């Protein structure tokens, strides 16, 4: 058997090509998985992904990644199916359990903790030939919108290193934006994939609640959490989601709904598509550059044959208050397991069990996590439950109903800005409430459980601006159709038969 030709020179270049090309090269033997892995690590070194600069990763394991890559080469040599992501280096957010690297969630309380099992999404990546090269930095337990809440220092935005990459999946967004990987996993509770994607100028997808297994994703707000993908292009994101999506017997909230081939929407065109423009997402005070880029995108939609319709989601204003009741309530319970008894940090105390709990949790959790645990404990307490948690759940139902109503009225997808501002400077947002408002356009999709994604639509003062596409439950195909069309239109590429009006 002839060994595949080595093509180390092309590996670095391949990382800047679409995933389909990478995978095809690997399958044909034109590129070795280990070369792609080397290229990713070399790129990380070149660009300064280390903690002194971008601080993208909390852990990497070049040796193991290279071993995995060589194993794949052997598979390909035996002509065994290497999968849809053969040889593709992937970065994984540090709240997703992996066997070979720690899973710390950006927290001191899980420093050095290595999971004895792997998340379903990671198993699916591996089964499809992906190589996990590192665990990415994040706001502690995914609580934050800037990655400044990591116990291991903030990640910087590769577009402008004075600025934050957004959060909480800031490390994953930076890894993709810096060209280290073509695909990364993030997680969402209230915009934690879409907002950093927007800040870093890449594509970020939050699937329908239940579309992707949460088994192995360290829980923050269980009724809101979903694993999502970050990529440079809509097509790469579609490929990545297709691999990780699907029902899982280990997650009772995962849905038994078939997984379509999202990349088939690539050439579906926009003719006849009805795009809703919800007025609540375009307030007076919206950054005018962002408003302008959104209008440009909507014009592009119109030009390619889609209809843009003004719509209303009347309960949008409540999404932030509702989110900041529901998510912390669930978090206060989800984070109770970090008690110093079985794993992770334990700080001994002279004051017995209660003292150990207090010392461990006081030292293990950062200020934002502590704040949310307190907030969540409060809203679930006897005497406050009805006024806060129960009320929030009722309003959450109204928010979800807004989406059902607007989609039932004939709107296929909604288009909005992803964030109210572009990436801000490190340390610029000090007031927690001001930080929470970063999620103002993204949190409703999590509350309603509908899929949403952010794609780059332009820039504001040199900083990337993201546009958000929101679709009905399990209607990822139409969401991707709208995203493919917009991406193409903004790049000035037209489908055969498509012509600018």
């Amino acid at each position, binding site marked *: 058997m002839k060994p595949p030709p080595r093509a180390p020179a092309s590996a670095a270049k391949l990382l800047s090509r679409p995933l389909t090309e990478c995978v095809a090269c690997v399958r044909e033997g034109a590129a070795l998985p280990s070369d792609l892995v080397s290229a990713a690590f070399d790129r990380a070194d070149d660009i300064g992904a280390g903690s002194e600069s971008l601080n993208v990763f909390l852990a990497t394991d070049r040796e193991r990644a290279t071993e995995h890559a060589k194993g794949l080469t052997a598979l390909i040599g035996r002509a065994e199916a290497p999968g849809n992501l053969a040889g593709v280096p992937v970065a994984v957010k540090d709240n*997703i359990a992996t066997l070979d690297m720690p*899973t710390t969630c950006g927290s001191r309380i899980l420093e050095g903790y290595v999971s004895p099992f792997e998340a379903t999404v990671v198993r699916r990546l591996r089964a499809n030939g992906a190589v996990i090269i590192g665990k990415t930095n994040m706001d502690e337990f995914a609580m934050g919108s800037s990655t400044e809440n990591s116990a291991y220092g903030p990640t910087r935005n590769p577009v402008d290193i004075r600025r934050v990459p957004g959060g909480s999946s800031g490390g994953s967004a930076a890894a993709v934006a810096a060209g280290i990987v073509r695909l990364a996993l993030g997680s969402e509770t209230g915009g934690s994939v879409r907002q950093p994607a927007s800040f870093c100028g890449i594509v970020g997808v939050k699937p329908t609640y239940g579309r992707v297994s949460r088994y*192995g994703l360290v829980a923050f707000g269980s009724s809101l959490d979903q694993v999502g993908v970050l990529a440079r292009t809509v097509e790469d994101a579609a490929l990545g989601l297709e691999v990780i999506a699907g029902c899982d017997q280990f997650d009772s*909230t995962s849905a038994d709904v078939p997984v379509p081939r999202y990349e088939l929407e690539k050439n579906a065109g926009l003719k006849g598509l009805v795009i809703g423009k919800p007025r609540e997402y375009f307030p007076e005070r919206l950054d005018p550059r962002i408003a302008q880029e959104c209008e440009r995108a909507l014009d592009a939609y119109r030009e390619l044959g889609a209809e843009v319709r003004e719509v209303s989601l009347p309960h949008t204003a409540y999404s932030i208050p509702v989110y900041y009741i529901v998510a912390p309530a669930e978090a206060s319970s989800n984070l109770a397991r970090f008690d110093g008894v079985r794993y992770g940090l334990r700080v001994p105390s002279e004051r017995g069990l209660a003292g150990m709990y207090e010392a461990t949790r006081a030292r293990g959790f950062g200020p934002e996590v502590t704040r949310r645990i307190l907030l969540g404990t409060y809203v679930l307490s006897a005497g406050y439950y009805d006024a806060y948690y129960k009320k929030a759940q009722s309003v959450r139902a109204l928010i979800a109903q807004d989406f059902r109503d607007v989609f039932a009225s004939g709107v296929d997808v909604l288009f909005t800005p992803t964030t109210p501002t572009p990436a801000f400077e490190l340390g610029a947002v000090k007031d927690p409430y001001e930080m929470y408002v970063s999620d103002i356009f993204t949190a409703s999709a999590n509350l309603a459980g509908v899929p949403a994604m952010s794609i780059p639509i332009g820039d504001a003062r040199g900083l990337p601006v993201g546009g958000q596409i929101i679709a009905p439950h399990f209607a990822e195909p139409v969401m991707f159709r709208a995203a493919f069309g917009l991406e193409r239109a903004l790049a000035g590429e037209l489908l055969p038969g498509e012509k600018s009006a």
Partner: protein
Amino acid sequence: MSAAASPDYEMVVGLEVHVQLKTRTKAFCGCSADFGAPPNTNVCPVCLALPGALPVLNQHAVELALRAALALDCKVNATSVFARKNYFYPDLPKGYQISQYDRPLAEKGWLTIGELDDGTPVRVGITRVHMEEDAGKSVHDRYAGATAIDLNRAGVPLIEIVSEPDMRSAAEAGAYLRLLKQILSYSGVSDVSMEEGSLRVDANVSARIRGATQLGTKTEVKNMNSFSAVERALDSEFARQVALLESGGTVTQQTMLWDGAKGETRASRTKEESHDYRYFPEPDLPPLVLDMEWVGRVGRAIPELPDARRKRMIGEYELSAADAELLTASAGMSEYFEAVARASLDPKAALNWVMGEVSAAVNAAGVRIDEFPVRPADLGELLRMVREDVVSHTAAKRVFARMVETGKPAAQVAAEEGLQKVGDDAALVEWIDEVLRENPAEAARYKSGETKLQGVLVGLVMKKSKGRADPRKVNQLLSERARV
């Protein structure tokens, strides 16, 4: 009646019973639910609450919980909701227990625990039956200055059966518990062993002046390890409350611990009442939506319950009410009896043997009836051999003893031990002659017409034959020998 007589107080009791379901695996993961494995061996990411693990509901646990609910005539909710009960404790890995709260599996059932002299049934209302998971165990006495945690039990499925405050005495509470245990055992829901912890009882008890309609302030009594301990604890706590009330004091709502050695209840130091469990719907599990047709099938498949079985047995086997009561005290014993009765075609003998030899042997061996080495079919065969005169009644007891030791079938034991009846004239005559030779005085008196000695001599022959001789033939042959 003297005017100074103290008022007559009445005890009011409601019981909370936790029962471990007899499933092979835990409630929310695939770990074995077996009791007695080495510490922390039946554990996995889910029941250890490792980061990222999620619960998946065990369908068999739902089925067993439903059986219990239906056997207690509860109304099953088509949709019930799991909830998190939040509290910190080292043997509670997640920091919350998955339970059910405002929407339990089933509600509003009842249990008839007896009847009044006028035949009115005494019913105890069942408030609710809900599913939950067990916690692990904290071991305080194993290592000096440290507590060890064993999480084998963490996540084992439980149901909690909450009764209405419908019991008026310790005896009624005892009757309720014994009947509940029988029903849960009969329906295959649980092993219901207080020793192994698969059944645990907490009691809410209060005192009020007889005839009053308002309930008095209750205390919750815990730490009782047997039904009789429950009865003693209730009497003791009731007496304490009455003494308090009679001296003009008031009862404080609190948790009391039963101290069996001292025979008294004392206030628990932990303020359980101050707990705020912050219940909220468990987001990791969708609501439990039951197919009501399936619920119907589960109900129809419930094995016969003790009350029905008693009535049927009295009719079918002509048992006395007292015998039926005794036999049905345990599901296993009554099933064993029925199998023996059917195999032997002799219910009367089956009853005598099961209540006598079998009970004695089971108790002596300290095993459960389903572990007893003599299978009912084999005992049935032995009884048939007795009826058909293949073995004598005396020999049958020895055959049975060997069957208990070896587990072998009756015919094989009888053959191996040479315990079949000997009806062969030559052999019998030989034994008779030997007896007459060895007892010349009695022989002479017998031959001279003292026929009342016949019994003595037959007994001696039986003894010599080690019970094998056919007594009917011995009698006949002995009379013939006397005439020689």
